[in-house]
């Protein structure tokens, strides 16, 4: 994996990307850039979404039926593809959150063991 950056927070986040995207969309439909920006702002720029992997991830989610797309208008007044969370997506998010909780608790136990 030559393109994979070494140990950055982004690499750790790789498995959680879906959950982040779905969670962000619970606030309402938005386009790709807005989603990325929202995550960056929420985490105080601690988590940087790799723009190159954002869109394939969104397309994957759409194919699985967790999000659906519609045409809307962006802040620039241009046509923009908006992603909206579906009921299936909401259910998936719940599952991912539960998994994440379990996972992070486990990892913490190891990392912070005295």
């Amino acid at each position: 994996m030559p393109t994979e950056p070494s140990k950055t927070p982004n690499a750790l986040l790789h498995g959680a990307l879906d959950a982040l995207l779905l969670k962000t969309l619970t606030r309402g439909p938005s386009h790709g850039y807005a989603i990325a920006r929202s995550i960056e702002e929420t985490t105080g720029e601690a988590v940087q979404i790799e723009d190159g992997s954002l869109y394939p991830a969104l397309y994957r989610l759409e194919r699985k039926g967790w999000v659906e797309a519609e045409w809307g208008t962006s802040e620039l007044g241009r046509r923009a593809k908006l992603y909206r969370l579906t009921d299936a997506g909401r259910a998936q998010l719940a599952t991912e959150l539960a998994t994440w909780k379990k996972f992070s608790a486990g990892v913490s136990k190891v990392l912070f063991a005295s």
Partner: protein
Amino acid sequence: MKRSLRAWLWRVPLDQEIEEEIDLHVEMRTRELIARGFDPAAARERAMARMGDVATVKRTCVDLGRKRDREMHMAQWLGELRHDLRFTLRQLRATPTFTLVATLTLALGIGANSGIFALVDATLLRPLPYPDAGRLVTIWETSGTNTRRFASAPNMLDWNTRSRTFEKVAGFTPNVGGMVMAGVDGMAETYSRQWVTSGIFDVFGVKPIAGRTFLSSDDERRAHVIVLSEGFWEARFNRDPSLIGREIKLDGILWTVVGVVPKTFTILGRTSFWAMRPILNLPPRARGGSGLQVVGRMKPGIAVAAGQADLEAVAAGLTREYPDTNTGRSVRIEPLHDTMIGTDLKLTSMLFLGVVGFVLLICCANVANLLLARATARTREFAVRAALGAGRRRIVRQLLTESVVLSIIGGAAGLAVGWGILEVAPRLIPDGLLPETVSLKFDARVIAFCAFAALGVGVVFGIMPAWQATSFSSPEVLGSESRAVTGGGRLRSLLVAGEVATAVLLLVGAGLLLRTLIAVQSYDRGYRAESVLSMLVDPLGSSYPTPEALQQFLDQVEQEVRAVPGVQDVAWSTALPLGESLYGDFALTYEVAGDPPVEESKRPTTRYQVVSGSYFSTIDLPIVAGRAFDSRDRRDSAKVCIVNEAFARTLGGRSPIGMRVGFRVAGSREGETNYGEIVGVAKQVKGRPDEPKDYVQIYVPLAHDLSDDMLLLVRPRSGDAAALTPAVRAAIARIDKEQLVSVRDITALEDVEWSATGRHRFRAAMVAAFAALALALAMVGVFGILAYSVQQRVRELGVRRALGARTADVLRLVAVNAAGVVGGGAALGLLLSLVLGRLIGTMLFGVTPFDALTFTAVAVVLAVTAAVSIAGPAWRASRIDPAVALRDR
């Protein structure tokens, strides 16, 4: 539901979709960076860098998007299908009469087709039930004009050893005979036996299920060995494995049971066991004989023509080596399949297939008609749907779903009909039409055929109504006042005319075959006895070693049977006046003494029948000149014979009485010629009603050519000959005190005749039944369009009545249309019959394919049935009450 909305609203190509997204993203990221203080060029560069390799991103997204679209279409398609199916089932439930009529029609059509398919499959498509059956051929000997002679054993052995194209060659006797064995209760019982040569099971590729089959060492030892059929082993010996290797007594001789072969193995004719006929080390004169039907297994990859050429060369060599016996003899090979499935059966199968195919077409037309009527009535519904945005394709798909569902239901019911037909069929099919190796089976192939037919039919009869029903303009339909638009009337008339034409075609075919049947049944058989009992009496050679003893036995039996109450006359004969002679195709060559000598191979042949003196009076066959045999013809008296009319005609106008003829077995030596003086001429007997030319025949008195295996013919004073059977058997038993005589093949002569005309009866009955079905279906079609058009025109007819139209006017108005359809269809059908009639020419007898009587009769039948089907709707039209018609909208 929401997901499927995308397909309607999202009309942007995939590349453009992702392009726009990435452009927007980069643009916004650039603005963000500029806002943070970067200069525009650097900001854009950074934004691009964050996106990474744009081409790869795009490719990944397009790929994912394409998969997404495909899955979405699939889901949408399935959703629509589910919807269509639900809607269809609701529709079918809502109109139960329509559903029932359509399903029954289709079930009949598809069922009849699957039944006939089983026959065609068994006779034409499926290979024979032997391994590598394609390599099996029948090898006939030929001599002169006879191209299907049974072979002599020494010739067959030489074919086996000298040919390079055959793996193995073996033979069997075509007739199944009987052997006497002590039965379970100690009584003598006769079981059927077929003679075979030692290699027969190897040629057919049959493996024994117990013990072994014959070896050539059995033949070298001239061993008495038999192989049992599984059925006989089970029924008679309860599958006793210890039987293998044991000896059982047959015809008073001990035979060793060497093995058992599976039930499925039959050659020609069903038999309980096969007995090995030794053919090694036969005396040289045996080469001149015949009697073996020979089957060969060719080596892999050898063409029939190559095998033929190879064997012809072998036969030519044999002719050079054995000129005495083999001059003029050669060989002809044909695929075993052709031998077993005769041309007659192939033609019959094709005929039936054609006929049921036409019936299916009519069924389709009828259902298409029903659908058209329904679709026309539903035009408003479709218009509303179209107005709401349904495309034409979508509506056509809905209608096609309906027709396919209908045909699947019809196909399932047809499967049941087909199963029923195949259950009943074996009892209807005349004996001997199907060879033993062919069986009608209801199997996966028939089911597959049914499914295929149902689907095909569903699409064929569905597409036209669907297209027709959707050719409208919505505003026009929605704006029109009438409840339905009378579209499709023309199409429906054409369909019905086509149905009538097809029915006429089948009726003509049935008519011609019926005329054939009548001709076959009313032909002059030559003899006049109504009912004669016949049975084969086989006084086994060893019990009556001398001709005198045999003669005495036959005389005694004759006297004893003659004394049975109710018996009018008794005779012995080697053949029945109908059906195969005991000798099979065996014929003698003959020449008239005093005529210039003719080369052996060019001599005419004659059938040869040995009869006792009372034969002619027993079957009431008139002697047209000279005398019958009588007490003057004893063993030591001068040789005499009686010839038939066809024989007499070959003499060129000379009187046959007093002439001397010499006859001998073809291929035998000059010295074996028998001479006899012609003392009488018997009326011509027709062996088969449709035989192409009269048989030439010679009768010889029993006293001059004694043989065992004689047929006893008994004619009752009155009534049914079969009723005499027990009394006659008892009479024979009184003479045969040791219970060694085998009595079998008990039939009444009239039953033999029945089986000879059986295939004509079968063909005529089948085609007539299908033609009647076709006629009924076509008339349902006529009734359908007429009733419908009357219903559509109630208002118009009501107005006419109100304006003073008389009943006759209304009737004419309604009937003219229907008469046009029926008349046009009939004309077309008769025309087609003229063309297609020729195809069944070979099955006709005593009638030409252009028989005026048949055509007229069909026209009359059609006119009458059409009148009946028109009467109902016309009557209804004439009874329309103007007041009601105008009020009722």
